[in-house]
């Protein structure tokens, strides 16, 4: 599958190994447990909100944006260096990031255009 996300990958692997119960086990393992841990950490930060240091620490957690940026750059590097794919990438970026168009509609349009053009150009 192209660029399938981690959760779906885990659920799929669980399903392949152990059928429905495997899929459910994977789901619990990758979503429910980390989710509970995250809410716990979130509660901790909320309860410490009165302290300056909490805000400073969260500002530093801006390093987390680096995770997204490295993912974005990796994805961008895999886009062929051709006019059409590059133009579609930029147009998608501008529509969502700069113009703040609703994602669902912006993506529906760009996916449609992109796949249609890929259909015409792929051998």
């Amino acid at each position, binding site marked *: 599958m192209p660029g399938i996300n981690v959760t779906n990958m885990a659920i799929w692997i669980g399903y392949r190994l152990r059928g429905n119960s495997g899929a459910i086990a994977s789901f619990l393992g990758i979503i429910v447990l980390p989710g509970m841990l995250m809410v716990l950490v979130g509660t901790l930060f909320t309860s410490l909100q009165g302290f300056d240091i909490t805000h400073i620490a969260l500002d530093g957690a801006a390093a987390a944006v680096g995770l997204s940026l490295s993912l974005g750059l990796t*994805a961008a590097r895999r886009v062929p260096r051709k006019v059409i794919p590059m133009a579609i990438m930029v147009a998608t970026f501008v529509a969502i990031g700069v113009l703040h168009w*609703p994602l669902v509609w912006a993506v529906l349009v760009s996916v449609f255009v992109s796949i249609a053009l890929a259909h015409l150009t792929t051998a």
Partner: protein
Amino acid sequence: MSELLRTLLAVFAPLSLLTIGGGQSVVADIQRQVVDVHHWMTSREFVDLFAISRMTPGPGSLLATLIGWHVAGFWGAIVATIGIFAPTAFLIFGLAHIWRRYSGARWQRVLETGLRPVAAGMILASVYVLIRTLDGGWLAQLLAIASTAVLMTTRVNPFVVVLAGMGIFISLHAVGLV
């Protein structure tokens, strides 16, 4: 189901189908809806929640769980989690069977070629929105760029990078720079 829970579901369920390439691609739109459309929190609170969601292991889409919890407590967390994960999980189950059966077919290459630039544009848009709302000013932006460089050139665990970022800011605060 209360009005608030229904709205949470309506926000996250459609986005779920767009997370096929990864949870990061929908962060920009979560921010738009949660901050600008529904006014559930400020953009500062949103970035805080984003940071917290990246501090713990697990998929990036769990940000939805944290937002649900912040907005409507326990049931909010449950509803948002189901909203962001369930639709895409079912879609993938259907697709995976078809995909394996026609492995290597031309239409698969067309889909991959077509989806790739859109996915990249979506993720970069999310990053752009996040960087603009960073509250730590240019130092935080610099830190985000530095951590990107570290992540792309080494195999260090992302979790360590986030903790190091917090450590750096606390140190800077201790010496009076922030």
